[in-house]
C-alpha cells in the first residue's frame, strides 16, 4: 500500500517536504482565514447592534439594485467570452455609449416637459435610444476591432479590447467634455413603493424588475430559440458549428448585439438610479461587472447574474457587516478589498467561478 502511494507522488515533489501538497495547504489556510475573519467580524457587528433591522434591510436592497446593474453588464462579458473566448474590456464603454446617447434625448424631453408628463412613454423612448447607442458601438467594435483577430493568440484580442476601451473613453471625452452631467429623471421616480411591507425606492424596484425580466428573457432566448441554439453551438465548438452549416459570423454579431442591448438597459437603469453620466462612467462598472462575471463563472448566463448579485451585496452589506465589529474607521473605503478578497477566495477553491466549468485558463 505505502509503496504504491509513494510511486503516485510526482517526481518533483520528492525531496520537497516529503511530498506535502504545500500549495493546497496554503490555499486552505488562506481560505479558512478569510472565512473565519468574516464570520468573526459579522458576529461582533451583530453583537454591537448599532444597525437597526431596517438599516440592514435597506443595505440589502441597495446591494440587490446595484448588483442588478452589474449583472446586466456582466451578461455581456459572459456571452462574448462564451462565444469568442475573449474578454471584451471595451464593454464598459458600450454601456457608456448607451447612457450618453440617451442623455441627449432625455435632456430634450426634459426641456419640453414630455419627460414628466408621459414618463412611461419617455422612458421607453430613452430605453430604445440607449439600446441603439450601445448596440451600435458593440457592432462597430466587433466589425472593426475584433473580427480580424479571430485566429490570433488569446492575448492579442485582449490588448485590442483594452485599446478600444481607452479609445472610446477619450473620444467621448473629446466630443462631450470630461465633466459629468446630471441626467434628468421623471419626477414620478422619486419616492418609494411599499412591497410586502418593505419600502423600496421606486427607481430600485424598476431596476430589479427590469434586470430580472432581462435575465429570464435572455435565458429563455438562449435555451429555446434557434439563434440561441446556434449561439450555444458556437460557444461549444466554433469549427464544428460552422461545419454544421451555422453562420458563425452572424452568430457572433448577434451575440454582440444582445450584449449591447443589455448594456443599453443597464445604462438607462444606472442613469435612473445615479442620475449622472460622464465619458469615464463605464470604466469602473465595467471592471466590477467583469469581476462579477468571473466570480459567477464566466461564459455562463446564470453565473453572470449570480456574480453580479453577489458582488452588489458584498459591496453594500460587506463593509458594514464584516468590518464594523472590528472598529475599523471608515469601513466603506475597504469595500473593494472585501469584494476582491471574496473573489480570490472563490477562485482558489473553484477556479472557474461559482457556476463555472472549473477550467482555470481564461487568457
Amino acid at each position, binding site marked *: 500500500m505505502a509503496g504504491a502511494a509513494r510511486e503516485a507522488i510526482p517526481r518533483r515533489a520528492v525531496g520537497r517536504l516529503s511530498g506535502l501538497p504545500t500549495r493546497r495547504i496554503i490555499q486552505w489556510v488562506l481560505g479558512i482565514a478569510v472565512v473565519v475573519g468574516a464570520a468573526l467580524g459579522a458576529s461582533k457587528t451583530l453583537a454591537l447592534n*448599532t*444597525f*437597526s433591522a*431596517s*438599516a440592514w434591510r*435597506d*443595505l440589502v436592497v*441597495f*446591494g440587490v439594485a*446595484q448588483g442588478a446593474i452589474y449583472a446586466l453588464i456582466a451578461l455581456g462579458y459572459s456571452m462574448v467570452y462564451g462565444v469568442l473566448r475573449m474578454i471584451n474590456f471595451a464593454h464598459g464603454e458600450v454601456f457608456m455609449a448607451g447612457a450618453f446617447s440617451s442623455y441627449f434625448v432625455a435632456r430634450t424631453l426634459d426641456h419640453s416637459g414630455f419627460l414628466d408628463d408621459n414618463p412611461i412613454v419617455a422612458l421607453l423612448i430613452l430605453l430604445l435610444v440607449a439600446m441603439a447607442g450601445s448596440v451600435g458601438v458593440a457592432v462597430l467594435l466587433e466589425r472593426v476591432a475584433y473580427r480580424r483577430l479571430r485566429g490570433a493568440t488569446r492575448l492579442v484580442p485582449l490588448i485590442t479590447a483594452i485599446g478600444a476601451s481607452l479609445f472610446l473613453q477619450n473620444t467621448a471625452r473629446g466630443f462631450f*467634455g*470630461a*465633466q*459629468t*452631467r*446630471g441626467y434628468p429623471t421623471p419626477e414620478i421616480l422619486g419616492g*418609494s413603493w411599499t412591497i410586502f411591507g418593505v*419600502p423600496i*425606492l421606486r427607481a430600485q424596484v424598476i431596476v430589479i424588475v427590469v434586470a430580472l425580466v432581462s435575465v429570464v428573457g435572455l435565458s429563455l432566448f438562449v435555451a429555446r430559440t434557434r439563434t440561441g441554439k446556434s449561439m450555444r453551438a458556437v460557444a461549444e465548438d466554433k469549427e464544428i458549428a460552422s461545419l454544421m452549416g451555422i453562420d458563425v459570423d452572424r452568430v457572433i454579431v448577434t451575440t454582440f448585439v444582445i450584449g449591447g442591448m443589455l448594456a443599453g438597459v443597464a445604462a438607462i437603469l444606472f442613469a435612473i438610479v*445615479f*442620475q*449622472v453620466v*460622464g465619458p*469615464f*462612467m463605464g470604466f*469602473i462598472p465595467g471592471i466590477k461587472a467583469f469581476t462579477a462575471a468571473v466570480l459567477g463563472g464566466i461564459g455562463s448566463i446564470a453565473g453572470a447574474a449570480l456574480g453580479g448579485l453577489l458582488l452588489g451585496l458584498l*459591496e*453594500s*452589506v460587506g*463593509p*458594514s457587516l464584516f468590518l*464594523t465589529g472590528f472598529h475599523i*474607521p*471608515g*469601513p*466603506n*473605503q475597504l*469595500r473593494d478589498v472585501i469584494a476582491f478578497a471574496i473573489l480570490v477566495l472563490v477562485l482558489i477553491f473553484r477556479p472557474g467561478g461559482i457556476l463555472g466549468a472549473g477550467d482555470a485558463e481564461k487568457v
Partner: protein
Amino acid sequence: MRKSRWLTMVALVGVLTLVAAACSKDNGGGGGSTGSSGASGSAIDCDTVQFGCVVYGPGEPIRVGTLLAISGDVATLGVDSVHGVELAIDHLDGKFDATPGQLLGHDVTLQQEDDLCSKEGGQSGATKLAADPTIAFVIGTSCSSAALGVADTILSDKGTILISPSNTAAGLTAPSQHQPFYLRTAQNDAIQAKVVSDFVFTKLGFTKAATIHDESPYAAGLTGGFKTFFEGLGGTVTDEEAITSTDTDFKPLLTSIAQTHPQLIYLPDFNPACALIAIQAQDIPDLKGVALMGSDGCGASTFFDQAGSAGDGFYLSGPIASPGSTTSALSDEYNAAYKDQFGSPTADFNANAFDAFNVVTDAIKTVAIQGSDGSLSIPRVALKDAVFQTVDFAGLSGTLTCISTGDCQAPGAVNIGVYQAPDAPVNPATPDAKPIFNEQLTLAEALGQ
C-alpha cells in the same frame, strides 16, 4: 515580404517624427536661462546667479504659465481662475477694456496647462512648465493635491515661482513642507475649518457631526481641522468616513453614517460627489432632518446643475473677498468686467487669481533689468525675494502681506462666509446671494495662538 518591409519603413518614419518633435525647441523667448545683464550695468549677473534670469528679447512677449484645473468635473474652479488672470492682463493698462495691457513694454501671454486636480496632472503640467525657460512664473495649482509635494517641488527646483489662487490645504505652507518658491493668495484652510466648526456649534447649535473626506489633502485637511476645532468647542464627531472622488454609489455609506445619529454631515469634497450625496441622502429615511455641509470644493455651479432641487438646504462655506478701502472701487469695476466678459463666476477664487498675478508683476517691476535695446531680464531669485517681501498689497481679496511660509494673507483677517443653497453666489440663479453667517479670522486667531 513586401508588405512587412513597407510597414517597417512607415514605423521607422513614425519613430523619427516623434523623436524630431520631442527634440525641437519651444520658441517664444530668448531661449535660455542665462543672458546678458543688459547695457544698464546692473549688479546682478545672470550668468552666475543661482537659477539665472528669464530673458526676453525686444518685442518678445512675457510668458506666464497657468497650471489650473481647466477640464473635467472641477473645470469650473480652474477656468474661473484663468478668467481672473485674463482680467489681470487686461488691467495692466489700468482699464478693464477687454484689450490686454503690457508689462514693461512687453505683451503678456499665457501658457495654459491642466492640473487635472490630481497628483498626476500637477506632475506632468509642472514638469512641462519647468522645462520651458521662458516661463517667468506660474499661477497654480487649482487643487492642493496637484501642488503638495508635486508641482511646488518641481517648480521650486527650477527656481520658478508657483503662486496659487485656490490651494487651501494647510500642509502647503507648513514650515516642514513649504517649498521656497511657493506662495498662495488663497486662505489657509485652518481658518475655514475653524469657521465651519463655529458655524455648526454656535449658529446651528449642533453637537454631533460626521465627516466625509475624499482623501485629497484639501478635504482631509478640512475634516481633520474641523474635528479638532469642533471637539475643542465641546462637540463630538460621530463618524469619520472616506470616499474616492470617482465613486457614484453612496447609499450604503450614508446608511452606515446614519446609524451613528449625527445632526450634520460635513463633506468638504468636490463635485460630483457632493451633488450625488445630496441627491442620495434624500433616499435614506434615517437621514431625515440631518443637515449637509460642504466647503468651496462643493461650491461650484456644477453642484446646482447636478443636484437640482435635491441640493436645497445644503450649506456651503467659502471665502468672501474683502477688498480694503482703497480697492473697493476696483472691486466693483472688476466684478462688472467679469460679468461683462465671462458671465457669472462659477467658483470663489477668481479674485485671488487676479491678486496672484498682480503681486508677482508688481515684484517684476521692481527687479527686472531693462536693456536699452528693449530686452528684459528677470532674475529668478531676486523676483522670489521681492514677492516674499510684499507688504500691504491692496488686493481684491484683501490687503495682502506675504510671509515667509508662503501665505499671502490679509493680516486684517480672512473672511469666510456660509451660504445655504440655493442662495449661493456660485449658483447662476443667485449671483448676489448674501451669506447667512460669516467670520473674519487671522491664521493666528484660528490656531488659538
